[in-house]
Each structure stands twice: as structure tokens, then as C-alpha cells.
């Protein structure tokens, strides 16, 4: 576990940092993709095979493409002249620190309350499916609604743009 975990963590964090620090937006997008890959590897390390591969499929296969298209949608993917930090970087940093604090606090709280145990036992896809169709059927439908809403929203935004011109 040890070495692999640290390697993957370094990869993930480096990808994330690069995404923030690189100047060229497309490079940032590719760095984010690397971070996604690192996350997927972390899932795999936790024996969450399905989640890990789904992460690759959805995040590298779709979200990364979405990000890239979004970047190309903006005029000029040319490297900006100025520095990578905007003027409000201090505020940004504060927000990030706050969120990190909240998350860390939550994680520590939960970690303290859970009994110490090894990684969860391997879950088969079949079990996921059964759980999904049984216990979590309502969330599933809500997700469907959410996805449909997202679809409709995106279409409306796009159509609005078209009409607006």
C-alpha cells in the first residue's frame, strides 16, 4: 500500500497544482485530467474497482473533453500575458483554506467515530446493482431527474446564446 499510495498521491496533487499554476488553459485541462487519473487510481487502491473505472470513464472520457471544449469555446486559448494569479488571489486563498478546514474537520470527526478497520471488503458490481435497484432506487430516480434537468438546462443556455446573437 505504502509506496503506491504516496506515488499516486503525488501524481494527483501534482496534477492539481499544475492545473492551477500552468498558464496555458489547455495545459491546465490536461493537468486536471492527470489529477482525475490519480483519483481513479486512489479509488482502485481502495478496492473500489467500479468507482475507479467509472471515474476514468466519466471524468477522463467525458468531463475532460467537456472542459477542453469549454476552453476552446472561449476566445483565444493563447497564453495570457500576466501572471497566473488574479488580483483577488487572497480572497480565493481564504475561501480555499476555509473549505479545506471544513472538509478536514469533517473527515477527522468521522474518522474518529468509525471503528478502525481495513479497507472495505470487495464489492461486486452485482451487489452494487442490487443495492441500486433496491435500497437506493429513489436516489437513482432523483439522479435521473437531475441529469435530465442538467440536459435541459444546458440546451436552454445554448439556445439562449443562439437567440441572443
Amino acid at each position, binding site marked *: 500500500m505504502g509506496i503506491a499510495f504516496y506515488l499516486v498521491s503525488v501524481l494527483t496533487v501534482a496534477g492539481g497544482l499544475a492545473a492551477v499554476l500552468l498558464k496555458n488553459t489547455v495545459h491546465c485541462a490536461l493537468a486536471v485530467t492527470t489529477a482525475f487519473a490519480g483519483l481513479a487510481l486512489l479509488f482502485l487502491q481502495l478496492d473500489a474497482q467500479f468507482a475507479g473505472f467509472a471515474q476514468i470513464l466519466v471524468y477522463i472520457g467525458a468531463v475532460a473533453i467537456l472542459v477542453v471544449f469549454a476552453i476552446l*469555446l472561449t*476566445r483565444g486559448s493563447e497564453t495570457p500575458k500576466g501572471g497566473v494569479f488574479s488580483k483577488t488571489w487572497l480572497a480565493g486563498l481564504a475561501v480555499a483554506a476555509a473549505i479545506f478546514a471544513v472538509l478536514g474537520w469533517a473527515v477527522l470527526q468521522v474518522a474518529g467515530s468509525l471503528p478502525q478497520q481495513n479497507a472495505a471488503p470487495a464489492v461486486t458490481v452485482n451487489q452494487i446493482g442490487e443495492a441500486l435497484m433496491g435500497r437506493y432506487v429513489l436516489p437513482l430516480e432523483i439522479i435521473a431527474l437531475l441529469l435530465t434537468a442538467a440536459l435541459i438546462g444546458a440546451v436552454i443556455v445554448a439556445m439562449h*446564446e*443562439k437567440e441572443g*446573437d
Partner: protein
Amino acid sequence: MTPSTIDPERLEGWNRPPIIEPDGEGDLLEVAMGPHHPSTHGVFRMDLALDGERVIRLKPVFGYLHRNHEKIAETVSYLATMPYTDRLDYICSLTNNWAYALAVEKLVGQEVPERAEYLRVILGELTRAQNHASSIGFLLQEMGASGTPLMYAFREREKILDLFESLTGSRMMCNYMRFGGCRVDASPVWLDAVRKVVAGLPAFVDEFERFLSGSEIVMARCQGVGILKPELAINAGVTGPMLRASGVNYDIRKVDHYGIYDRFKFRVPLGDHGDIYDRYMVRILEIRESIGILEQALKGIPGGPVMDPKAKIRNFRPKPGEAYGRIEAPKGELGFYLISDGGPNPYRYRVRPPSLINLTVLEDMCLGSNVADVVLIFGSVDIVLGEVDR
């Protein structure tokens, strides 16, 4: 149908290409297609402005094969210009020969023996068949058919080129016709060979049609794309299969009755939509009509000389005057305008290239369509750069 029916008040600008406004979203992408581009039939360039994949502006750029044909013709003798006409539309050299010979014959008032006229018709129609075959082959090639239709077309073309070579000595640059006849006579063996090739042509056209005409992809790519309205086609001087695909019945073989075309029974296929598919089909149907003409000509070819005995090869000096002669070349109206000042060289020699003038409407047909369509529309015009730029 004829432009006279158009309200003269709105004539100003009606024949200009439409102005397509970009939808303001996204940058216009300025792309130069050519001069080295896989689908420009050689060295042609189109400067495109693309909005996404939609064509907003298209400016053709010519001259990459401007070989000064007209200037050279003014410095060499009438006869010596004949081999240069081969190189105008280098796919159909024989019809170029014919048009030039016809113009010079008009200039000097020369007669052509009957056998020579028959030979001219036979060679002209063979040329038309092979030109149309290879032109639709190239069109399909541009559609991305990885060469197979083109290969089939060239398989047939090779047979016809063999006929040309065995009669005239050269596959492509035949230099065969002379003022007042043809250079050499055709032997019965050659005529038999032509009969054999002509007998095989319908099978080729059938195969080609089975292969592609019904293909959904071909229909999806060709139908309704690159529409040319008949009014504009006439006004822009478009001729040949392109004009007829727009539904205008104008075939110089029927109109001028040059040569001996009034002796043959043939029909002129017309399209109703004026799109790429119609141009493709009109060419295929014209091959079929050409086969009919060839069969009749081969049946009726008389004996006799192939050259007017009064014709002169050397010291050919027409009297001062001018003449415009034209024929229905496979690509459209090919005309030669000659001014003679009595010297051994033409004073002015002008080629009316069908390819160049058919390209006038390229912009009108392409604007607003997809980039991929531009390539097809361009291919469906069927041009040869040697003739466009001369």
C-alpha cells in the same frame, strides 16, 4: 425559366453571390484550400472563411497553372498550336483538337470529308465517355471512396486510351485533327477494336450504377447539395452537363448541328434539381447516350479520304478575318476565337474555357454549405486546371 421573365427592376445584383452572415458565435476560421490540397484537381486555391464548418466566404484563386497558352499560340503557326490545344483540357485532348480545327475551318472556310467527320464524332464521343467516367470517379474519390470508383473508371478509360494510342500515337496528347480533316485514317482493325470497347461500355456503366447510384451515402452527400438555379446558370454562362443538370436544354450538338451530329439520334438528359446528384447522373446518362451515338457512327462510317485535298499543312496563311467556333466539349462549350491578319500565326487566339466559366458560380453554390460539401461541389463542376488557367 429564361431571364427575360425576371423583373428587370430587380435585376441589379440578382446574379451576385448571396451574402451569408456568420451567426456571430465563434471565430471565423480563414482557411486556404490549395494550391496543394488533395482535392483541388491540381493547383487550385479557394480562400474560405468558415463559421464552424459553414462556408461564409469563398474566393477562388486561379493562375497556378497559367501557362500562357494564348500568348504562345500567337507566336507559333496555326498548325503548331494544335498540339498545345491537347494540353488545355488534358483529359479530353481530342475534343480540344476538334474545337480548334472547327474554328480554323470557319476562319478559312474549309470543308471536311465525310469519313473524317465520322472519325471526329467517334473520337469525340469516346472522349466524352472517358471524361465523364473519370470525372465521376474523381467526384467519388473526393467523397472519400478510397479510390475504388476512380479505379473502375480508369480501368475503362485505359481501354479507350489504348484506342487513342493505336490511332493517334499518344495516350493523352493526341494531336490528331487537322484543318480539313484528320491526320491519319483509321484501319478496319481499329474500328473493330472500337466496336469491342463500345460493346463493353454499357456493362461498365451498369456496374458503376449498381455500385454507387443507389448508395445511401452517395445520396445523402449529393442530393440537395450545391444547387444551381437555371436562371443563374444561364446568366453565368455555365455550359455542359452542369447546365443540363439544372434543367436547361442546351446542347451545342443539338443547337449548332456542327459536324454531322444532326444525323444521329440521341437525347439530352436533363436534371430537375441542379444539385450534385443531378450532375453525377446527367454525366452517367450522357455516357449512355454517347454509347448510342458511337454505335450509330460505327455502323454508318463511310469510306473515302480523311483529309480535304485542298488542305495545306505548311505555309498555312488564312486571309484576314476572324471567326468564333465552338463545340460541345465534355465539360461544356469549348470555343476558339481567332483573328487572322493574314500572317502564318494567329493575330489573336482566344480560348473560351468551359471549366473557368463554370467556376463562376462556385461561390454561389458553396456559400452557406459545409466545408465537406465545397469539395464535392467543386468536384461536381468537373474542371481541368489546364483549361481554367490556360
